[in-house]
Every structure is written in C-alpha cells, then in structure tokens.
C-alpha cells in the first residue's frame, strides 16, 4: 500500500486532467486528452531525432552539474572548515543567492557564445549555490568530539578531513546535489527555450509555436520522467555511498 500511494496520486491527477479535457469547458488545444498526449509520447520515443534532442539536453545538464559538483563541494568544504574562507566567501554567496541568474543569460551568450557553452555555464552557476551552501553547513557541523578523537588517535589534518569530515558531511553534500540536479534540468530547458536550435527546450517552444500543446506536453512528460529517473539514480548512489545513514531511516 505504501508503495502504491504515489501511483494513486498520479492516477488521480491523470483522471482529473482527463475529466477536464473531456468536459468541454476548456479548449482542447489547451487541455488535450491523455490519448493525444500518449500518442505524441509514443511518436517521441520512435523518432531518433527526438531522442537525440533529449541526449543533447542531458549532456548540457550533466556537464554543468558535474562542474558545479566539483567546484561547489570543494568551496563548501573549505568554507565549512576555514573561518577565514567562510568570512571571505559567505557574503558573496548569501548576497547573490537570490539573484535570478537566468537574467544573466544574454551576457552568457555574449561571453560563451550561443551554443552549448553558455547553457552549461549557466547550469554551473545555478547549481553551484545550493551545493556550496548545503555542503558548507555539513562541513561546519561535524562533531568536535569526532575530530578530537581522530586527533588523539594520531590522524593528520588530511587524514581527519578524509576519514572524518568528508564522511560526516556526505549526507549534506548529497542533499545539496539533490537540490541542484533538478535545477540543472530546469535551467537547460529554459535556456534552450530562450535561445537554441536543439534540445528538449527547443522542442517545447517549437511545439508551442505550432499550437501543438499535446506535443509540448509529451515533451514535458519526458522531462519530468528524466528528472525523476535522475533523482532516483542519485538517491541510489547516495544510499550506496552513505550506507550508514540511508534516507528511509529518517522516518523510523
């Protein structure tokens, strides 16, 4: 029953959608039936060019996300363990966190060009913030008792960082990554909608421009499914690496 609950919720949403679509209250071009969306979904998976567009978007999202993970975890760990670096960088990150970086996209186009690089750079910037902030909180919150114990047992600073700080901050690092991953996908889609000749965002705007809401919604379903699969993959990786603190244990 516990496993079925989310499926029941999805089924209820789909039923509500179909009821609206069939009610005749709204134009079917705005609320196409599930049958029409499903047909477009099947077409999407049978067209190699559609799959290529999805692959292009994923590549951009992964590239920006991977770069943000590398840089963000490093900066977050440094901010968490060094008061001087925290004092230096914290005002920068907290002061600019609320800035909608998407507004900077035209500048990114001028600096990095109209191709993939400007999109990857914006994904990197948007993902960097949650990773840095959550990682630094995790690194800062490592129990002093654990660090003293490691020092008493003769661990060097590097060994203490590797054996104590990183494992203790790992749940936080993954929390930051889990926040950043869907952001990566969202930013890629939006930037492709704004200025691109390929990718899933381009397919969304192309379908919208042709008043093909059914086709656009099929792409939205694909994006949602990709987001869900990526999140599940990240949670699986987290549970494998942070095996002493699996996510389900929080509810026990």
């Amino acid at each position, binding site marked *: 029953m516990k496993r079925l609950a989310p499926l029941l919720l999805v089924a209820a949403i789909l039923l509500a959608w179909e009821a609206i679509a069939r009610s005749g209250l*709204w*134009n079917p*071009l*705005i609320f196409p039936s599930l049958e029409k969306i499903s047909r477009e979904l099947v077409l999407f998976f049978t067209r190699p060019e559609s799959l290529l567009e999805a692959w292009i978007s994923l590549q951009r999202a992964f590239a920006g996300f991977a770069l943000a993970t590398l840089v963000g975890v490093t900066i977050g760990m440094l901010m968490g363990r060094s008061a001087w670096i925290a004092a230096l960088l914290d005002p920068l990150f907290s002061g600019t966190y609320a800035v909608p970086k998407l507004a900077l996209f*035209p500048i990114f*186009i*001028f600096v990095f*060009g*109209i191709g993939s690089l400007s999109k990857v750079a914006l994904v990197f910037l948007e993902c960097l913030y949650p990773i840095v902030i959550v990682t630094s909180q995790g690194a800062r919150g490592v129990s002093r008792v654990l660090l003293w114990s490691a020092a008493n047992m003769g661990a060097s600073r590097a060994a203490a960082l590797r054996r104590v700080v990183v494992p203790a901050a790992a749940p936080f690092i993954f929390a930051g990554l889990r926040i950043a991953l869907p952001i990566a996908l969202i930013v890629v889609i939006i930037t492709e909608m*704004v*200025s*691109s*000749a390929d990718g899933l965002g*381009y397919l969304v*705007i*192309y379908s*919208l*421009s*042709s*008043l*093909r809401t059914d086709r656009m919604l099929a792409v939205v379903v694909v994006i949602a499914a990709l987001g869900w699969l990526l999140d599940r993959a990240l949670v699986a990786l987290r549970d494998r690496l942070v095996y002493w603190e699996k996510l389900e244990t929080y509810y026990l």
Partner: protein
Amino acid sequence: MRVFVSFFLVLFSITAAAQTPPTIRFGRGFAAEEQMWLMSVRKDLTPNQGKAYNLNQILFQANPERFQAYLAGELDGGTAPGLAVIFAHAQGVDMKIVASICLEAAGQGIFTTQYMVKDDGPIKSVKDLKGGTIAVVGIKTATDLWARAGLINAGLVPDKDTKVVPMGFPVIGDAVRTGKVSAGVFVEPFYSAEMAKGGLRKLFTATEVLGYDHELLDIFFSEKFLKANPGAVRAFLADYVAVTKYYLANMEQAKTDLHKAGFVRTPLPVYLKTSDWKRDPNGRVDVGSLEKLSKFMLEKLNWLEKPVNVREMVDLSYLPR
C-alpha cells in the same frame, strides 16, 4: 409599492445593459501596429468608439501567449501575423482575419525586414552561411520563415547546414558584430539604430527571398464574436480604416502622439525618421499572398501537416465598402 420599485429597477438595469456597447477585448503586440494603438491614443479619430463598441487593448509580448489567452476565452480578437493565423487555422482554431495592418513589401520609402552580416566579415552571399548561425526573433515566426526561405533559395538546408536560433531584437546587432552569430534579422527601429552604429551589411531582405509582397500583420476575431456583434465589428473596422488613412496622411503627428502616450519607447527623433511598413489605406487583406505563404509553409518548410484553406479563414465583409 416595493413590487413597483423592484420592477422599475430591473427594467432600468435591462435598458442600461442593452444600451452599453459591447467591449472588444483586443490582444495587441508591440511592433508595427501603429493604427491600432492610435485608436486608443486618439479617440477623437474614432467616432464609433464608446457608442457602437468599447475597445480594451491588452498588450502581449509574443504570439503563443496571445493565442493561449484567446483560446482561454480572454480575448475576442487581436493582431497576429498572417502565418500565425495559418498555424491556428490548421489546428482548427475559430479565428477569422478581417483586416490587414501591414505588409512586408518592397518599394521606395517602404521598410522590409533586413538580414545583415558583419561588414568586414567573410560572408559575402547566403551560400557562405553554411556551417554558420542565423539569428531570428522566434521559432516559427515570420523572421524564421524568411531566414529559412533565404537558406533554401541558396541551396542550404536549414538546421542542418545553418542553425537558426531565436534571439531578442535588441541584442542581435552586437551578436553579429562580435561573430556570435553569422547573420541576424533587423526590423525598425533596431535597423536604423544599428545602421547608425555601422559595421553591418545587408545580406537579403524578406521580400527578396519570397519574391512577392505579402501580409505581415492582420486583425482577427473569433467567428463567435463576429456573429454575435456584427454591428460592433463593422463600426470598429470603420474607425480602424479612418485611423489608418489619418495615420498615412499625418504620419509625423501620429507618431508623435503615440510616442507621447508611451506606446513607443524609441527616442522620438529616431522613431520619426524610421521608414514604415506598407499599409493598405482600406485595410484590405492580400489573400493571395497568404495562400502563397501557406503553400510555402506546407511544401518547403513542412510546418503544416495538411493544406490550409486560406480563403476560408479570411472574411473582408466587415470592412467598410
């Protein structure tokens, strides 16, 4: 006594409602629609306004949003590019073109959309765009159509040989100059501003690539609204034609009024100098050009899945005779 008072109150409200002219909820855009804007700015030019109809113009930044509002029943009509109405008609949307706003045309003193490249760059002809990028203002817009027409004419395959990417008008000039894109589309007032800066050269124009003058912007209404309010639409179009004639005869004054009312943000001296699109003084629609456009969209661009009956989507009977 109470019964009598209630009776007279109901009678009064029914009479008042019957005398109130219908309000036209009209979706407008932000470029090339001077006559429409003037209808709101210079109501003294529209004798029927307030008597036979009320006009509520609502600004939209792009066609998809305007059409979504229209489909949601929030608009009775609006302005739209001819090709956008062709798309809508292909999807079975209840929409009729009733008048023309402007045409993309060649001629002395008439503006036609320009595609430009860097003056000292390597692109000398459209064929040189192979492997490059061309900036348009939106996917499946008229600017996209002309760009693709230019590439096809030069034997290039759009998207394969040359990428077509959307970009905002204000940034296209610098994007071309800095080599971020190989070519870009320019309309007024951006065209005049960029020409004043220098460093750009014409590659082709919209009318050159299609080879004929054609409808750019039109006025549409829903068939439902037309049937329910024929008198209001006729009165509205009579005012529209009168305003169009005034605009063509008194362009400087009309542009000054529009600028003063905040409909145009370009500096007034620049705005007054810019050349205008071709406008039919009687608002007549060039149906033949729309037919050619729809054929091109179907056969060359694969933008349509089936042929569209263009004559069916145009109704000029509401225009003054």
